[in-house]
């Protein structure tokens, strides 16, 4: 079995999902469905609710109302089945600076009950091209290397669904290309990713959901859509169709 192979991709579905923090509706009645093996991009300006939505899908945030299903089963935060099925990469690496790259992965592999954890850790380190740095500490890593190690952590337990929150953020062009090449090996998974990089997002995703002010504003089948064409749709969806968006990047 290769690093990329796993059991079977799962469908993800949200129905009228809302998350309220005090008076703020971070996510407001969002519904969508992601087919197995589909790659869907969540696009939207900062504060649109993308990350909250992804954290709800990861089981880290409980929705205030609405339901999320994973492979047809209700997603309940803390449910072991959810955590076995989902791999998550966020802005933060979720790594310990005082454990080496290998030790970090081994800790998470053990928590996930991965069979033959030592071999699996070496396999994912190899998959993200970090085998040569396995004994080094993440504190010595660049942002790009930390992101790769974070991806390795997310892949350890062969998740059926990958949730990637801004995977390209803060990376230089070479690191973006490296990460994109690694992700190419996981096209058979159900993937949801958020990104501000419209060009990269359009090239990677089958479909785009535009979210703004906590609401789903558009659902676009990307097919042969060009980045320029999608940008027009995107700007219209977030209410900025005059070529500027009030200083808010996509």
């Amino acid at each position, binding site marked *: 079995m290769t690093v990329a192979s796993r059991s079977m991709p799962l469908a993800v579905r949200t129905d009228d999902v809302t998350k309220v923090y005090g008076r703020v509706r971070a996510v407001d009645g969002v519904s969508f469905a992601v087919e197995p093996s589909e790659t869907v991009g969540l696009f939207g300006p900062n504060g649109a609710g993308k990350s909250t939505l992804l954290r709800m899908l*990861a089981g*880290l*945030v409980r929705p205030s109302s609405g339901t999320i299903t994973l492979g047809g089963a209700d997603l309940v935060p*803390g449910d072991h*089945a959810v955590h*076995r099925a989902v791999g998550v990469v966020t802005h933060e690496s979720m790594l*310990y600076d005082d454990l080496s790259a290998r030790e970090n992965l081994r*800790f*998470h592999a053990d*928590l996930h009950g991965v069979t033959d954890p030592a071999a699996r850790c070496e396999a994912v380190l190899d998959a993200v091209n970090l085998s040569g740095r396995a004994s080094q500490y993440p504190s010595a890593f660049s942002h790009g290397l930390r992101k790769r190690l974070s991806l390795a952590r997310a892949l350890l337990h062969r998740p059926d669904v990958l949730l990637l929150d801004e995977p390209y953020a803060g990376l230089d062009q070479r690191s973006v290309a490296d990460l994109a090449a690694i992700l190419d090996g996981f096209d058979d998974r159900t993937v949801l990713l958020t990104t501000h990089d419209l060009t990269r997002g359009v090239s990677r995703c089958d479909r785009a959901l535009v979210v703004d002010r906590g609401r789903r504003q558009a659902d676009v089948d990307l097919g042969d859509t060009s980045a320029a064409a999608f940008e027009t749709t995107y700007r219209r969806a977030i209410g900025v169709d005059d070529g500027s968006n009030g200083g808010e990047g996509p």
Partner: protein
Amino acid sequence: MRSFLAAVLRIVRKDLRIESRSRRVTTTMAMFALLIVLAFAFSFVKTVRNPAVLGRSALWIAFVFGGTLGVTRTATVEADDAALDGILLAPVDRSAIYLGKVTSTSLFVFAVNVSTLGATTVLLGYTPTLRTALALLGVLAVAAVGFAAVGVVVATLTFRAGLDELVLPLLLVPLVVPVLLAGVELTAALATGAPTESWLRLLVIYTAILLLAGVATFDFVVEE
């Protein structure tokens, strides 16, 4: 049950490994505890005639304030780069995560208490008999568990809610007052041979309540 205990042990082992490398938690706590004992030595050693009174006062003040620093540092390890989220994403009972954190924090607090006890002997002339010292270590061990039981919950809550670190002692200290009170009274009773049963019962029962409350609430504390 085996996987539950295995998860607890994995978290403890990870914390001990991190601490053995960084010594961030124990060094901070030990330095602070030592400063308290030194302050007692400079301020009271010539005026207070009874070293037992001085010793137990310094010991328990160092316990509370050193322990508060300790739980803050332990929680910081999990808050940095959202490391706790990584654990929460694993198929592990959240009560196992809580008990793992309580166990490692208790070990850190207890280890520093033992060194503080040594410092009170050297600097304040507090010399309990061997029997009293062993009983006192038992009291410190239970108190450390009680302190960590509530400390882990409050520290995690503080960091996850984005509250200032300074809020932590304000929330924590009132909750550990019964532990402190029982600890001080038990230390005095052990030295004078007074009955210890009622205070010991208070310490053990309150610690058990804190642990059960922590197990019951940790899930809500970590959930956004």
